[in-house]
């Protein structure tokens, strides 16, 4: 009893609860191992690869959510960037470096637009980023002409030619370290580390927490609230661009319909980790646990050949249960 009482503060931390949820999901994997495929390294490599694009989005989303906002535009920005990058490197033969820089700049500009509307236009984040979400999707369709931008190029006379898949795409879609780790997973981990450093080790990061916790108190402490909020959306936009680059590389094309609903998965991952949608509380570390929990849950369901309908229902139920557990005090 007394040992339990001593443990109680630990049991109540968000970290512990998030890890418990993840542990339960892993436990499910041990029980329902899909005829042992859960114990194969390749399964884990694939789980981590499949979660990477969502994970990159969730890193940026964490920052915005901690600042007290929300970013619904990331899925559309992903599509816009995937289309633009494919156009640049497949059709217009841009160098990979220039293509990537332009792609990230596009994401940053879209984030700047969201951030300006929220911080300076004083629009609610939900409304502002909803507008940017619709807007970006429109631009993506405009740039692509509504078609997938692929290596199969159709000329005006109806003949089609194939060009080679750009080296950039092949490099990102690769596996390294003896085929054990996907490059996109490395990119995801780098994004995570950058977010973690920014949030915990910079002046701006600490200010984002303060703003999410109490914007007025932060303002009256002489903090540049508007600029800090703006930067949160810019970062989220840039991460959405990185996700878009990975998506384009994996699909070897730019699909204007890509990333539909990805913003919601990213939000679910953030919430699953235990970061409060009210702002000011949480961390990208928690989000990482949320990302892994949802990613592994999906993977375990799929190796057990649960049909998509069932997977969605179970994932939805698990999110509700996890968030209930997080909110109990």
């Amino acid at each position, binding site marked *: 009893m007394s040992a339990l009482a001593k443990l109680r503060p630990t049991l109540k931390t968000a970290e512990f609860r998030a890890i418990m949820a993840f542990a339960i999901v892993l436990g499910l994997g041990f029980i329902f191992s899909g005829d042992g495929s859960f114990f194969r390294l390749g399964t884990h490599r694939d789980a981590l690869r499949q979660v990477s694009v969502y994970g990159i989005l969730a890193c940026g989303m964490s920052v915005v959510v901690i600042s007290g906002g929300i970013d619904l535009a990331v899925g559309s920005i992903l599509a816009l960037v995937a289309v633009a990058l494919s156009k640049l490197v497949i059709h217009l033969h841009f160098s990979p470096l220039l293509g990537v820089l332009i792609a990230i700049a596009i994401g940053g500009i879209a984030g700047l637009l969201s951030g300006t509307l929220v911080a300076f236009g004083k629009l609610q984040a939900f409304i502002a980023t909803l507008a940017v979400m619709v807007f970006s999707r429109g631009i993506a369709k405009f740039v692509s002409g509504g078609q997938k931008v692929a290596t199969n190029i159709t000329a005006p006379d109806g003949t089609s030619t194939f060009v080679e898949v750009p080296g950039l795409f092949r490099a990102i879609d690769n596996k390294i370290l003896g085929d054990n780790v996907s490059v996109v997973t490395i990119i995801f981990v780098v994004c995570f580390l950058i977010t973690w450093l920014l949030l915990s080790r910079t*002046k701006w990061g*600490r200010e984002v927490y303060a703003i999410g916790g*109490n914007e007025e108190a*932060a303002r009256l402490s*002489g*903090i540049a609230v508007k600029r800090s909020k703006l930067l949160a959306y810019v970062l989220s936009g840039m991460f959405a661009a990185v996700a878009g680059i990975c998506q384009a590389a994996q699909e070897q094309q730019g699909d204007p319909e890509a990333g539909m609903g990805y913003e919601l998965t990213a939000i679910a991952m953030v919430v699953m980790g235990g970061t409060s949608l009210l702002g000011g*509380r949480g961390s990208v570390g928690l989000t990482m646990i949320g990302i892994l929990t949802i990613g592994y849950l999906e993977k375990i369901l799929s190796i057990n050949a649960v049909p998509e309908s069932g997977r969605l229902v179970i994932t939805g139920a698990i999110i509700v249960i996890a968030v209930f557990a997080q909110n109990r005090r």
Partner: protein
Amino acid sequence: MTAPLVELTEIHKSFGANPVLKGVNLELQSGEVHALAGGNGAGKSTLINILGGNITDYTGTIRIDGESKKYAAAADAIRGGIVVIHQELSLIPTLSVVENLFLGDPLTKRGLIDRKAMEAEAARILKRFEIDVDLRAPVQELPLSTRQLVEIAKGLRHKARVVVMDEPTSALNEIETQRLFGIIAELQRQGSGVLYISHRMEEIAQIATRVSVLRDGQIVATGTPRELTPDVIAAHMVGKPLEEVKLQVQADANMVGEVLLNAEEINFSRAGQTVVDHISIQVRAGEVVGLAGLEGAGASEVLWTLFGAHQKGGSCKMTLKGNPVDCASPKKSKTAGLALVTNDRKTTGLVLCASIEENAALPSHAKYARFGWLNTKAMLRAMDILCRSFAVKSANFSEAVSSLSGGNQQKVVLAKWHHTNPDVILLDEPTRGIDVHAKVQIYEQILKWKREGKGLLLISSDIHELILLSDRIEVMKQGKVVRQFSREDATAESVMRATISA
């Protein structure tokens, strides 16, 4: 002898491993006003919440009219005739006065809301309390004092045999306070019992028939106000007499140096209405300038305007140590050497969900940053020293600031501004809602700043406090300075009269 109206016996309650109430015994007779005094963290709120049915997992018994009762929820207690009027306002800002008054049990006609009947009833209730207010106005548009009156009216709408009031006058002016006392007298005549919680000794002396002092979860003294004079109560609450502060103030008087802050043409208007009207203010080094005025006189707005905290409508011409300062944003004012301690630590002073050290460091991040990267180790070390030197009572400064008592939260607010090393500190109600012990510590800090040659501009609705600390008092009314007092000729009566006279 009949059984008392309320009898609490051996009430115990712990939060986790932390005992808050350690066997409280308290009784309330019908027709009695029983004042309960106690420092922050003494357990008053917990006791009220138990009585009001908000906390149910306690041990001990509550008897009402001699009958043992255990309420399962607040609504249960209300039906049992127990009404608790909380200090924290429970009104919903966006709803109208009428809607708030009838929140939870609206008057209905055939299952539909009967707006007309509610408005008529509301008008009757508010008339009884002499509250002059637009019934349909959203509560957020009302001044704080009116909101508090509406809160009280809401509580007393139900026939209540037991009324618990937690610091009901903290936002009321003198006239409104007296009106409230009239209402309390009426409750007494009707045979209700009133449990009255207040930090204001003169109020206790005026209305209480009995006084109890709660300290560390136990009742340490009970008696008539005659036996328990303010000095005796304060002694029971803490021990450190206010006399010591008085002596220090006298020793430190007249250390005033050169002009630090010179502000002219201070103006502020809200929604086209002038709130602050062409005021000038000077603060010298080592000087405490008091700003007196009732709610709505514009004193707080002067501080906000000087600090650039109003997002629009404020302007002034100001120099600090001879250098012009643009009062355009808190960031600029902070850099120039100003600090503002606002009158509400919960909504504007602190980030409640953040840790003590994060809050203390908030305005000083730049000190520990190089190209935006924080030296968190050095910062946390400095915050540890800072919070210790301000006697913030916590085992661990990485805990949420919301876990602290009000007085300790306020110390964190003072500490965070102290660390920015300001020249002039603007203090808006720095001791609102905190216990005597913490008050003394804050007075001592103010005197310390004074000795360090900082300039202080102080607002306090506690007139005795204002007179004790201020070297000079400016009295404001309707946005203008109407009178000035020096330390020698300021008395509580004369300053109070100046704030209300035409």
